[in-house]
């Protein structure tokens, strides 16, 4: 079974960059979703415990989500570079 897969990948020998690009972008999206989901969860919990701090928590959560998104977009940029090669 693996021989068949290896044969197919030999035939499409220019498949590497495209596959890599897809994996990079997809996994980056998974990472972003996980990270921002956790931040959102903690932010919701914090606001539920102390509704007076809602504004401060919202501001912090937004800032941290943008940082996590930046890291995830590194992966997307690598994908872009690979796809355009």
């Amino acid at each position, binding site marked *: 079974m693996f021989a068949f897969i290896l044969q197919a990948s030999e035939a499409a020998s220019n498949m590497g960059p495209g596959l890599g690009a897809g994996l990079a972008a997809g996994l980056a999206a998974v990472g972003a979703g996980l990270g921002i989901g956790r931040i959102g969860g903690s932010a919701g919990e914090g606001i539920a415990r102390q509704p007076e701090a809602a504004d401060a928590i919202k501001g912090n959560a*937004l*800032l941290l989500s*943008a*940082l996590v*998104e*930046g890291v995830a*977009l*590194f992966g*997307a*940029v690598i994908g*872009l570079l690979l796809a355009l090669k």
Partner: protein
Amino acid sequence: MRSLALFLIGLLGFLAAGTFADCAVAQAEAPAPAAAPQDPAHGHDAKTMEMDNGAFFKKQYSHNVPYVLFTPEVTGDPETDKFFSFYNVNKFQWIALAICLLIFLPIKASFRKQGEVSFFTRVFRGWCRWIRDEMVYPVLGEEEGKQFAPYFIFLFFFVAVMNVIGMIPSGGPISTYTATGTPYVTGALALITLLTMLFFGMKKNGVIGFFKGLLPHGLPTALLPLMAVVELVGLLVKPFALTIRLFANMLAGHLVIASLIGLIFLFAKMQGGAATSYLTAVPAAGMAVFIFIIESFVTLLQAYIFTYLSIIFLQQAMHPEH
């Protein structure tokens, strides 16, 4: 005095953006001279039914690639003239600068007037005060923050205006381009942040003191070379992360919108141009509108993040915490 230094560094940034873009485009041109990026307005002769499936998306993506507008004859040599070529990226940076001046010169003049000022002036005064009081002063403190507040206010509005210009739809006579959607412009701005970090960090702590401040206290001597490398890389990677964060956020938003618009043509071609292709265009355009709404929030948020991180990096460079 400090504002003058920062303004000159900013001018350097314009030249840097042009140079980076020029080097990259020249490298792309060298192996394939026929494929130099052209003004996308020239290529609209193909019919939907004759294009193959990838070409719809390529045509939409081509609106996000920087291209040369004109190359002035400064020296006689065409190779050196390429350094002075004027890109569409540069044009939109100048337009953003002009818009910033248009907004802020009347507000500066309004401080001399007595009595009520217009809503527009109050909004922008409040916005600048917010940047100064909630972003610069909490991190840098009042005395140091006073010197740097003008630069960071300008940085915020410059990036925000460039991002927002990219939100204007292009069609017909209006053709806009997101200048921050190229790594050249964001790289130039991050380079300015890096130079500011180095210059003011070294001015405050001395050249040797700046690098000594990078290393933590109380370190075993065997670890010093390793920590030196790690801290140096950490110093250089911070502006690089700024570059990639802003560039990727802007470009990704526009590429997603371009892909969803290309879907309209793809669906039309897949149905052979039947009347239901108007129906399939509706969800595609609907998704594009949704992403547009998110993008309009991301433009201002990324300007805020860029400015806030620049402030934090400057504070870290001037006051090493170890």
